[in-house]
């Protein structure tokens, strides 16, 4: 029913790869930052909180531009990373970085809320049973936060899949390398006769987003049942 051209498939596959990598790589950082914000009081906490949430309120083009001057080939960090072979500019890895940064606040927010909702007395109980802090985290805190972690991952994945402004500013719109689903749809709407192709990609985007929502609902329900059922 959907006869996608090879170029359109490339955009879909690339978007999925970018969204999966962006979500997967940012997950450990997201868990760490969420835990710090939920559990620790330290100097500069409000600043960290603000920086994490900045991509949510800044125009995406601004975030993309900041990434360009920081992680571009001549950027402060980008030039250092280029020396060891890690290049972001005009590569799909750069798109993944942009998507990860844009999705990070959503990821952190969901995980932080679930950390804050955990009954800390269960962690105390685990400590009296001989679990050190790492084991308490791995066997009690993280499993209990799992519904929130899944919700955060789905939000981050959806955001990464749809990210447009920061990505196109940072790594441009190169078919096969940085042209994501959103960028491809935008490109097709700009050329005469591109409506059909844009329409097909729009349907794909809707299907992926719905599938992600249903999957997260299912995982969250399963996790919830585990805690309250038999």
């Amino acid at each position, binding site marked *: 029913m959907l006869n996608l051209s090879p170029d359109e498939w490339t955009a879909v596959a690339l978007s999925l790869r970018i969204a999966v990598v962006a979500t997967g790589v940012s997950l450990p950082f997201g868990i760490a930052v969420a835990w710090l914000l939920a559990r620790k009081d330290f100097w500069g906490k409000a600043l960290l909180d603000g920086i994490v949430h900045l991509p949510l309120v800044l125009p995406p083009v601004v975030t993309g531009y900041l990434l360009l001057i920081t992680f571009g080939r001549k950027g402060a960090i980008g030039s250092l990373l280029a020396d060891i072979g890690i290049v972001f500019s005009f590569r799909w890895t750069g798109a993944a970085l942009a998507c990860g940064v844009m999705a990070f606040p959503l990821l952190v927010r969901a995980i932080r809320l679930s950390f804050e909702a955990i*009954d800390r*007395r*269960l962690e*105390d*109980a*685990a*400590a*009296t*049973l*001989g*679990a*050190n*802090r790492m*084991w*308490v985290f791995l*066997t*009690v805190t993280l*499993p*209990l936060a799992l519904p929130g972690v899944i919700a955060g991952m789905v939000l981050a994945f959806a955001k990464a899949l749809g990210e447009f402004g920061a990505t196109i500013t940072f790594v441009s719109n190169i078919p096969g390398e940085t042209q994501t689903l959103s960028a491809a749809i935008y490109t097709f709407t700009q050329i005469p006769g591109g409506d059909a192709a844009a329409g097909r990609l729009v349907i794909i985007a809707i299907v992926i987003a719905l599938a992600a929502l249903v999957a997260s609902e299912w995982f969250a329900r399963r996790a919830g049942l*585990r*805690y*309250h*059922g*038999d």
Partner: protein
Amino acid sequence: MLSVDVEKRLGDFNLAAKFETAAGATALFGPSGSGKTSLVNMIGGLLTPDRGRIALGEDVLFDSATRINVPAHRRRIGTVFQEGRLFPHMTVARNLDYGRWMSGLSDDPAEWQRIVTLLDIGGLLQRRPGRLSGGERQRIAIGRALLMKPRLLLLDEPLASLDRARKLEILPYLARLRDEAKVPMIYVSHLAGEIQRLCQQVVRIEDGRVQASGGVELLDAEVAH
């Protein structure tokens, strides 16, 4: 056995308590808000005293003078909390096994069988805590604390959240525990009746201070009314 001499300021409340216990079951007795739970948390390592010393036999757990503070997870003190605090994401069997696993003890099927029989929880092992009754939960919490082979068992009002019928259900298990398990126990309660059934010694706490300590005859006046 256990010797406690601690001071702790908690907001407006000043706790300064000194007592020693012998082997067997000792009650920390006193009205709500007298500082019993804070004392239990300091013994277990969940709350740090401002000053003082806590020692279990020869083993110093906390000493502000020499800056010793053994963390909770290395004290090997089993604690049964008022609300059970079972892990909701684990089956009863995994809850029971958690302390043994985390304390790095080898599997001991005989001990497992003995505790499961003692507390009569064999039929619950594959269930999750969410649907258990309060009495079942407390029995499992007791079993979980025992299976880590604690050097001391702290029971912080383990019956307080239960109705009268459930209390009567658990009390015999606690008596068997005292007679069979041979683990020294600190039993926190504000009810003289429970204590008289279970404990040989009483430390009476009021307003953050030890008012008296001695045998269960300390409670005679309370039981009279």
